């Protein structure tokens, strides 16, 4: 079951690479949050209830509902165009996504071979999410897509931390979550400001400071 969920999580990345609407990104994000929640429910046993409650809060409530809702309302309110405007066309993006996938599976295979006590498929897909989000950050012109891709990066990191057997202390978990939350909040505040002050919302408009 968890294998299917993980692969589904990976295919959301393919969808994001091929999608040309910004709202599709947000939906994929919400889907990712929900899948992460299901993964925790299906896969994690022997965990203290407080940690479990915390994980559910983090995945379902914050990653699955609050942040996507927040971003969606920002997108609707600002009436920014719907296209994501990549530098490289979506077809080649999907091609590159498949290459990233192959790399991720090689990494998963290899990590299983090294016998380091990690779950290979989790590891591979999280590597896929991380590399893919970095590629998307480079390849998309819009500032709002940068925020969305940052969230994908965070999901990848969350999955990576699930692949490791050791648990972080709850204090650290709370701190990470708080940082993530405040980070997204700040991103949106500054995004709104940029929207107000500049005509467009492309990174091409941010060229005032240079040497």
């Amino acid at each position, binding site marked *: *079951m*968890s*294998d*299917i969920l993980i*692969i589904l999580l*990976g*295919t959301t990345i*393919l969808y994001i*690479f*091929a999608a*040309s609407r910004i709202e599709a990104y947000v939906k994929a994000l919400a889907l990712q949050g929900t899948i992460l929640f299901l993964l925790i429910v299906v*896969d*994690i*046993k*022997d*965990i203290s209830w407080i940690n479990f409650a915390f994980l559910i809060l983090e995945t379902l409530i914050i990653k699955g509902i609050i942040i996507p809702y927040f971003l969606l309302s920002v997108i609707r309110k600002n009436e920014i165009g719907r296209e994501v405007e990549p530098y490289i*066309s*979506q*077809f080649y*993006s*999907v*091609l590159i*996504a*498949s290459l990233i*996938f*192959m790399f991720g*599976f*090689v990494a*998963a*295979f290899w990590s*299983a*071979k090294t016998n380091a*006590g*990690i*779950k*290979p*498929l*989790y590891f591979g897909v999280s590597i896929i999410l991380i590399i893919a989000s970095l590629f998307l950050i480079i390849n998309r012109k819009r500032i709002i897509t940068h925020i969305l891709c940052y969230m994908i990066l965070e999901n990848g990191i969350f999955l990576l931390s*699930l692949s490791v*057997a050791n648990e972080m202390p709850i204090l650290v978990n709370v701190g990470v979550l708080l940082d993530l939350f405040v980070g997204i909040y700040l991103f949106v505040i500054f995004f709104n400001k940029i929207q107000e002050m500049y005509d467009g919302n492309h990174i091409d408009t941010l060229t005032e400071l240079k040497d």
Partner: protein
Amino acid sequence: MMLKYIIIALVIISPFFFTGLINKVKAIWAGRKGSPVLQPYFDFVRLIQKGEVISKTTSFIFQISPSINIASSLFALMLIPLPFLGSVISFKGDFILFSYTLAFSKFLMILAALDTGSSFEGIGASREVTYSTIVETAFFIIMGSLALLTNQISFSSIFALLNMSTGYTILIKILLVISLFIMVLVEGSRIPIDDPNTHLELTMIHEVMILDYSGTDLAFILYSTALKMVIVSMLIANLLVPLYLTVPISLILFAFILILIFMIIGLIESLIARLRISHVPQFIFFMTAFSLIAFAIIAFFLRAGVQFSGKGL
């Protein structure tokens, strides 16, 4: 043994029933009564009875293309196995022949389209080539990964060894079914890749290539397109039918899955608009991506004997 030939004969008769089914689903979904399910047969008979108009600028390619098309589709059908019964013709590496038979018919279609000298048909041919390149690679990845999984290299033996028991094969089957389903859509030129009902040459893909055909030739082409969809759907059904059932039940299930696939196609056509031409390749590329994932899982996990989820947590 007779059963196999009877079923193959039924399949040969069936393609228009399935296209009729798509139309019926679309009609019901739209709240219309719709034409009868067997309407495509009536159209077929009507077209056969009509005379042909053949452009003077064309060569013999244009005339032989539909016949070769229908012949190669029928030959491809002979290679497809049925659950428990196997295929009519089976030998090692038959899926390569299968793929090239389909490619050959497509090649002649494209040549014929170029033969007419019409610029619209040239556009259609170019698009068709683009999509086929993607589909064929993906198909080979699918068959390659299945061969890797079962250690067999013919359709019948591959499908005879697949069973649904373990978690891994379920996952692989889901991925492969999705990508084969995309292949059905491409082979049949259905929405969201191509709209068979469109009336604007610029947006056509498959339809524009057969603009110049009429009468019997057109009927042949319509038939072979429908048959190709059925053939690829049969591959999907082969993947899905479990092998621990008795022969009659599995055959009924087989037919049921085929009907289900075509009803899903009908639903998709009712619900989704066709994609922008520039977005089609990336949609078809999903087929490659999914089959690559399946291939990677087989190559790295199953073959290497590595467990998916390590212990822990």
